[in-house]
């Protein structure tokens, strides 16, 4: 993603910093950034590897970097809706397909919500750490 002057003036400093950290952590993954109108940004990472637990090899990952980072946790996160487990297919118990309205798509998109919130302190947690934590959990199912 290119941080244009326009994008830069629409985002809080902590959000810009988080985007830069994500870019550095995943230099080969396509990254889409859409301001949320409050100083935060919706982010879509694509081609995120899913590992061997799933029949699909990659997923998109959509999440909000809130305007009040780092006071606020980064959650929820959303992945592709057609996930099938490698062994017996289907989703993990507790996961379900839902619809997401976000400013990156003109209409609702089918997604699976995979993250609710971080337990304990999240103030010192970086955005890539949160992404890795969630993706580790997805890959371990």
């Amino acid at each position, binding site marked *: 993603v290119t941080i244009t002057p326009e994008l830069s003036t629409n985002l809080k400093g902590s959000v810009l910093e988080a985007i830069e950290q994500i870019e550095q952590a995943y230099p080969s993954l396509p990254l889409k950034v859409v301001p949320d109108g409050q100083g935060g940004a919706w982010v879509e990472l694509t081609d995120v590897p899913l590992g061997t637990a799933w029949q699909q090899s990659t997923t998109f990952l959509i999440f909000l970097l809130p305007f009040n980072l780092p*006071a606020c946790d980064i959650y929820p996160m959303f992945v592709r809706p057609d996930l099938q487990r490698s062994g017996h297919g289907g989703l993990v118990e507790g996961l379900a397909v839902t619809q997401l309205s976000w400013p990156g798509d003109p209409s609702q998109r089918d997604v699976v919500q995979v993250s609710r*919130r971080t337990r304990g302190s999240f*103030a010192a947690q970086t955005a890539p750490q949160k992404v890795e934590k969630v993706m580790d959990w997805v890959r371990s199912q």
Partner: protein
Amino acid sequence: VTTNLELHIRQGDWERLIAHLFHDDHDEHGAVVLCGASDTAGRRRLLVREVVPALDGVDYVPGGRGYRHLTGAFVTRQLRRAKDMGLIYLAVHNHGGLGSVEFSPSDMASHERAYPTLLTVSGHAVGGVVVTSLALAGDVWQPGGTREPIPMTVVVGETRNLLRPSPMPQPHTSKLRYDRQSLLFGAAGQELLASMRVGIVGAGGVGMLAVQGLARLGVGELVVIDPDRVSSTNLPRLPEATRWDALEFLARSRFGPLRTASARFATPKVKLARRIVRRANRDTQILPVAGDVADESVARRLVDCDFILLAADSMLARDVVNQIAYQYLIPTLQIGSKVVVDKASGDVLDVYAVVRSLGCEPGCLSCNGLIDPVRLTEETLADEVQRENQRYIDDVDVHAPSVITVNMVAVGWAVNDFMQYAVGLGRPRSGYRILRTQPVTPGGPQLVSQTPDADPDCRVCGLASYSVLSKGDGADLPTRMR
């Protein structure tokens, strides 16, 4: 030369500084304080984040030109730390005497020799401070080349202790209307109240009672923030609100658009606050702000307040005001009341008022789990559609019980706390107090005082490099860009 520069320091830091500078040896000692800064229209505050004592004989040594001085190594070390954290470096030493203090000619000569170089190295303002235990004078050099004295220092804690280079003349009389209360705190106390700017976040059942109390006390200026309008269900708790303010005749209509109109055109709560203030005391100025404190432009109205009362219960409001209290060193009281009723049986389980002291000592709302991360995220999401499609809110229209008498318990305690802080009578500078009215067993305590947990790594009130404590304008607020 500006006369509006103020140094703000927490009482605990001031006590540590004084204990280091004033020994039984009656000699001169040195230290450095590192400060954030806050600039608002015409007022600049330096906010002490850290006191660094200089060890006698190691960091503070006999000088060739003056009596004593900080060593080059110590100055370099502290200046580098200041630069790394974006803070202002102030060298401190003590003089004899009590109520008056000024730099000696050799002090001023040393400033003129050293500060141009320190300014270049730091990139931020630098300066010197000389103190007695009751007076403080400063000489601050700005990067642009201007040089400013520090006419007033504010020690925030149990009281608002004002230190100046020399004593100010004290008023002997106050207006007749203040005669009875001046018997408690004198004309000087009344003048202190008149000099203060107090922020009230939330002009609901709690905040509006506080507005009335503060205006009648004679506080100089109130900044009242609330985004809402008066509704029929507010009327039992809002002083002076009428059914016309709530447009009750429209709210009761069977015709939906009329009910919508009542919600849309009812009196804004901050407008009611202005009416209350004008009727209570024409000497009190009010800045009504019809907006959400989670918006940057609204929150900025608070950063030059002398005291804040937080009477809004959203997590965003708690988060923003909690951070302002520590980032700008503004003594703050979070006020609330709660009635807990068993949903199934209707039994009253708990009735209490709570007053939490913030800004002066570590142990903020964040350290104590009083900013619910789930609710904070719900409130952070941009609009109702996103909140709904992520299934966080069970029922946004559920309201908790609320009764004016319980609110009065909380507000009376909090505004009295403010009064005792302002006029110098004193109050606890930290701690959470719960005043329980139900259930109370015979002989059982109605007042519970809690010592809050203080997380040394807290991003708000801790001292880790990433914490916002005393950083003033040097750190972002957790607010929307609006």
